[in-house]
């Protein structure tokens, strides 16, 4: 509470040498947040200048989200103050921050599917005329705002009918509907790929040009490097420092976030790949998503699947595994297998990690043991009864082999951080010891230290003679860990890269252009 005692907290901003200090549009001073005895944010002092793009980076649990929520009025600080253009402000509700000119673009898409784009934009602040909603005017304003953002959907279409990327734009349009002085983006590109990211970055540069301060939170350090004028690094709830954006390399940022020297993010590639086909899929068709896809993955191989959102990668595998309607001829170790359900897939020895670990992977309200054994119930517990002793042993084993960090054994899956949830999900799928492991977006929303570990686990799998398929929207990740990458576009395989041709630009080319020619790419 006492402001005087906090003024010397300025030293936290020390490394920001060479940055001119003008009137801050938003200033946080000694901001702290405690929940009971747990301090999640401690003494953060930060100035945001008009017209600057200020990135906030940090590992999961470093306090980024808490910081953003404090700035935008979702929670109140335990200590410290906020001021805007020199005036003290206090927000106890999000709409107060909104009114003061601070907009937050959420990480998750929070829109009502059954309502139109216009209705969503004005939800909760409908314009009225004579006490009735003024649809015509709202539609006009909505259309103008969408056009400004380069979003081509009609203002009258239902949100459920538009693509994920367009929904993200609608969400941004919603945040930008009123004039704002500060716009906060919380991991805006997590669900976007390639061109969609570019469009968003353009929007952000336009905001900057109009003198609006942009706070940008992201795990994608390449974006941070391109965008940020300043980079503030949070670690364990404390501000490590604020640095001029262009002076930091991605490795520098990662090192500051982790607080120790980081080994290479991607493990040294190993020659575990053999020529022995393990899983081969012929003529896979998933109505509406995938047309006639065939591929083979070999023992000891990490095969990547790249493509834009909507290219049909996830649908291909869900169709093949009986999770959605589809047909495919599947051979496992040379023998044909019929897979009509996830159970049959598991019995055949194919494990699948969904990209949606919170919605489809884990029971968030449940403890870790039942989550771990859920898909292996049949073979893990012979007979009728659940064997808790075995379950406890398996959990202890999983916690140590996958380095799952938890506060106590009684925690619920939902209380784990994203990285630890992913490790638990990996342990769950591997519990039935599949010979082919399909991992959809292995590191989405995961901090850098956990990423490196997960890459290590994937490599361990192929070293044990399993075959591994990695579906990812991060091309860098595919190039970093895969032996070979198949690129999909509009439901078909548009090409394949390996060895010398396996570069991000070749993958991007195959993913986006219809008649791509990649040198030596073994296209099918």
């Amino acid at each position: 509470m006492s402001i005087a005692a906090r003024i010397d907290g300025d030293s936290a901003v020390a490394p920001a040498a060479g940055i001119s200090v003008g009137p801050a549009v938003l200033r946080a001073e000694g901001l702290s947040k405690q929940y009971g005895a747990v301090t999640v944010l401690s003494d953060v002092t930060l100035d945001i200048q008009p017209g600057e793009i200020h990135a906030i980076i940090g590992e999961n649990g470093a306090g980024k989200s808490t910081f953003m929520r404090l700035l935008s009025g979702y929670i109140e600080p335990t200590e410290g103050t906020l001021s805007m253009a020199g005036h003290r402000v206090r927000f106890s509700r999000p709409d107060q921050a909104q009114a003061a000119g601070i907009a937050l673009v959420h990480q998750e898409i929070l829109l009502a599917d059954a309502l139109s784009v216009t209705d969503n934009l004005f939800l909760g602040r409908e314009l009225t005329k004579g006490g009735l909603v003024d649809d015509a005017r709202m539609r006009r304003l909505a259309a103008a705002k969408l056009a400004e953002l380069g979003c081509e959907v009609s203002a009258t279409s239902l949100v459920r009918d538009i693509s994920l990327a367009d929904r993200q734009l609608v969400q941004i349009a919603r945040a930008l509907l009123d004039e704002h002085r500060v716009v906060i983006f919380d991991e805006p590109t997590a669900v976007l790929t390639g061109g969609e990211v570019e469009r968003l970055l353009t929007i952000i540069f336009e905001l900057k040009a109009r003198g609006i301060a942009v706070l940008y939170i992201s795990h994608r350090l390449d974006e941070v490097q391109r965008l940020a004028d300043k980079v503030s690094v949070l670690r364990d709830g404390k501000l490590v420092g604020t640095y001029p954006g262009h002076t930091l390399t991605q490795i520098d940022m990662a090192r500051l976030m982790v607080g120790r020297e980081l080994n290479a993010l991607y493990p040294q590639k190993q020659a575990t790949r053999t020529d022995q086909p393990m899983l081969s899929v012929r003529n896979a068709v998933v109505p509406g998503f995938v047309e006639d896809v065939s591929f083979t993955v070999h023992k000891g191989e990490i095969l990547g699947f790249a493509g834009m959102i909507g290219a049909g990668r996830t649908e291909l595998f869900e169709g093949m595994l009986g999770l959605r309607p589809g047909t495919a001829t599947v051979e496992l170790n040379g023998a044909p297998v019929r897979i009509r359900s996830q159970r049959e897939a598991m019995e055949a020895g194919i494990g699948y990690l969904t990209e949606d670990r919170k919605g489809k992977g884990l029971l968030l309200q449940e403890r870790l043991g039942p989550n771990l054994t859920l898909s292996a119930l049949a073979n893990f517990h012979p007979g009728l009864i659940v064997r808790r002793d075995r379950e406890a042993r398996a959990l202890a084993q999983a916690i140590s082999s996958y380095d799952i960090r938890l506060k106590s054994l009684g925690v619920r899956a939902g209380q784990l951080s994203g990285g630890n949830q992913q490790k638990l999900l990996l342990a769950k799928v591997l519990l039935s010891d599949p010979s082919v492991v399909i991992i959809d977006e292995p590191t989405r929303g995961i901090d850098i230290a956990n990423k490196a570990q997960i890459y290590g686990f994937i490599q361990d799998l192929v070293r044990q003679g399993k075959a591994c398929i990695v579906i990812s929207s991060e091309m860098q990740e595919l190039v970093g860990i895969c032996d070979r990458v198949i690129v999909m576009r509009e439901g078909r395989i548009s090409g394949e890269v390996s060895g010398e041709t396996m570069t991000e630009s070749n993958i991007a080319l195959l993913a986006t252009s219809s008649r791509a020619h990649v040198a030596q790419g073994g296209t099918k």
Partner: protein
Amino acid sequence: MTVLTQSAPARTERQYQFSWADAGPFLALVALLALGFLVNPDFLSVTNLSNVITRSAYVAIIAVGATFVISSGGLDLSVGSMVAFIAGITIMFMNMMAPSLGLWAIPAGMAIAVVTGLLCGLANGVIVTVGKIEPFIATLGTMGIFRALITYMTNGGTIPIDKSLREAYRPVYFGTLGGIPIPILISAIVAVLGAFVLYKTKYGRRCAAVGANEDVARYSGISVIKTRTIAYVIQGACVAIAAICYVPRLGAATPTTGQLWELQVITAVVIGGTALRGGKGRIWGTIAGAVILELIANLMVLSDFVSEYLVAAVQGVIIIIAMLVQRFSK
């Protein structure tokens, strides 16, 4: 890259954590007993308590089944009319068989009751899972069907049980074994079995998983259709057992048998701490819930403060309080 060789932070900690929400129904039960004693010391007499618990037995037995249906993410509104329907079938069958089988008509009738219950439950389950109809609507439909069938079978009147069987069947409701009324014994057995299945078996795990998140269950290779349908079949079996206990009490089936029981059953389940949106089942809480409902009714009859016509209103208040406790005790 080698995996980090850090020691896992696994601590040997008790997995069970005390939760007010879980303890709530039992605390409420104790509080009611204490209140009852203050109002009228006879309330705690063995005779009165054993009467109360005996009367709560049907709702308790049916509610054990409902705990499965609700924790798997379903709902069954048809249980009340299903009791009447099964009671009607059972009595008609027993009466028909009495001349040829004699007293053996009673166990034969009980077997028919169980088979009918299983089939009714299966029908509900299949309509909900294979037919993909909202449980509320599907069982609203079967509720009407069962009620109409019993009305049709009784021709609007009653089907009494044959005189030759009445005396032999009476003890199933009125008898005792080792001093304990038989309905209490039966509901205890049903509860123990239910708790075993829900907490200790793979089926129980799957049931809760399907209720908590259907997608997670599906992606874990669990058949959602099978798991949910089995929950309804368990419900059907429980309704049949309740009907078997109920028939000797009145000695007849009528169109009003079991009317509005579905509300009492759902109330018992919910005040017992089972989440109405699924994923969390509490068998012993359900039993406590059923007893609480009957205790309140009894308390109101024994005391002169509140008219017994208001029993349903008080039960309504209780369910709302129970939901508020669940909401705010996180």
